[in-house]
């Protein structure tokens, strides 16, 4: 029963354009699921629908067998959400924020204090607990909110872009925390940091223009792309031109060849023979993402395809 299932979820704000269209998925409600997509792809809309904050225009969704749209109050017993632009309330201390959130969830005062302290320890913010939230670093402010959700004991955590705006070290710290939580919780997170999804997620969904373009593990997503290897070199196109695959040139002068394993092997041998420096890597989630949404984010760098 521990599954997240959506059937043809659609969302239209008023009479405007559809933010989501025909979202159907069925995944185990365990581990970490990352929903990636560009700004405006519909990530927040979907997460808000699943976290019972927003109505869907049509379709249905179930989590652990509970109807998200019709049994919201029942579902709310087992979910917690940290919205995208949530901020710890400025006039409270971290402890006061966490304790009050737990009181709202219906815990007694002493139990709330104890749970807040335990979660603070787990998330490494014990030293910040009695400081006003407004004095905390951006990373610790996010940790206060995540700690509140964790302390609630909710099995399912919805984290909407939990690391946006954090410096690389704070982001990595939060990643480690999320990794440590995934045994006990099902974490549904959205992000536009592709390396974050690749590092954390057991399954990844790619949302674009309100449609779910792909869903699967990294291995499953890789299979959707024919050319699994990327070669980067400063050689001119003539040397590295692939028989099959693409060759693009970026503003920095590098050539990027996207090709199959055997073709990558042939080209690399040719480059070695000529003493030309190059790097060769398997596809990252970035590459898969660009392939699936058909619109490179860094279009200026590798925008023009020279051959196919």
């Amino acid at each position, binding site marked *: 029963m521990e599954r997240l299932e959506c059937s043809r979820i659609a969302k239209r704000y008023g009479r405007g354009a559809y933010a989501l269209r025909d979202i159907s998925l069925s995944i185990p409600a365990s581990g970490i699921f990352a929903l990636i997509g560009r700004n405006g792809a519909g990530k927040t809309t979907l997460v808000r629908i699943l976290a019972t904050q927003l109505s869907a225009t049509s379709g249905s969704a179930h989590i652990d067998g509970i109807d998200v749209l019709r049994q919201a*109050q029942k579902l709310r017993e087992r979910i917690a959400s940290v919205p995208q632009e949530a901020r710890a309330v400025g*006039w409270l201390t971290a402890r006061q924020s966490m304790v009050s959130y737990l009181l709202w969830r219906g815990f007694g005062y002493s139990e709330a204090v104890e749970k807040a302290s335990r979660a603070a320890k787990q998330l490494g913010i014990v030293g910040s607990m009695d400081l006003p939230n407004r004095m905390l670093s951006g990373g610790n402010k996010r940790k206060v909110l995540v700690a509140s959700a964790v302390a609630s004991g909710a099995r399912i955590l919805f984290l909407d872009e939990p690391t946006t705006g954090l410096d690389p070290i704070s982001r990595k710290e939060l990643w480690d925390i999320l990794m440590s939580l995934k045994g006990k919780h099902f974490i549904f997170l959205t992000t536009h940091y592709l390396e974050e999804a690749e590092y954390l997620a057991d399954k990844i969904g790619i949302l674009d223009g309100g449609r779910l373009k792909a869903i699967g593990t990294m291995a499953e997503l890789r299979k959707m792309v024919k050319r699994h290897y990327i070669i980067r070199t400063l050689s001119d196109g003539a040397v590295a031109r692939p028989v099959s695959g693409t060759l693009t040139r970026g503003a920095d002068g590098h050539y990027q060849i996207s090709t199959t394993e055997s073709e990558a092997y042939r080209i690399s041998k040719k480059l070695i023979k000529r003493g030309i420096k190059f790097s060769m890597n398997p596809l990252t989630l970035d590459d898969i993402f660009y392939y699936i949404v058909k619109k490179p984010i860094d279009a200026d760098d590798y925008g023009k395809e020279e051959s196919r």
Partner: protein
Amino acid sequence: MLMIMEKRNRGSQILASILVNAIYAMVNYPIVLISTLLAPFSLLIVITFVSHGALLPIAIGGALIMTIIGAGTSLQQDLSHLKNDFKLQDMIVSSPTTARMYLAGMAASEIIYSLPALLVLAALAGLYISAPAIAFLEIVAVLAVMFVFSVSLGFLLSTFTSDVVQSWAFAGIVSTVLSALPPVYYPISYIPQPLQYLAYLSPATYAAEILQNAIGAVTFSSYSIAVDWLVIVAIAAVMAFLAIRKSKWRED
């Protein structure tokens, strides 16, 4: 498997709102306490001086009504702030707290917030209003009804705001209709005749008439007072119903 609490402590849910919106704000920023204490006295002082003290009892009653109505206006702004600037309401929607419990807690927090001013006004009422005990009971009843009306209105409006600017706009309109228009600090006879009809658009006018009649400052017929009660109870009931049923707890 993590434990799922089947029974939630409703007292805790109300306490959370009181702590966040009143106690912690006052403890962490004591200046808030001074501000909330002074708020109802500005007009009371002006009216008292201008009338050479003659309108002091009515002005005390008016300040009581305006403090209670102010609780609703503040509630609207506080909830909009927590909802739109901190996204706190989204976190609470995705929790076992219901809209009803959140409203009850936040309403209670506004009473706690207004308590210093209410206590001072109650002391002034004891000193300067000479009326039978039953009149004071009537005053408490009318304040209670107006409180239900104002916090329900504040909660309802807050759930429709998506930006703090909208919240300011709502507060401006509500303040004008509920505080500038009605004659709460003076008798309605002070308003020129045609404009008196305009004053009756505000529920605060009916509350003021009941209060002014109760303390013996202005005499209204029993029929008028019965109509006044009917109007404020009906408006408060409708507003409470709308707040509970029509508020956008889960957004459309």
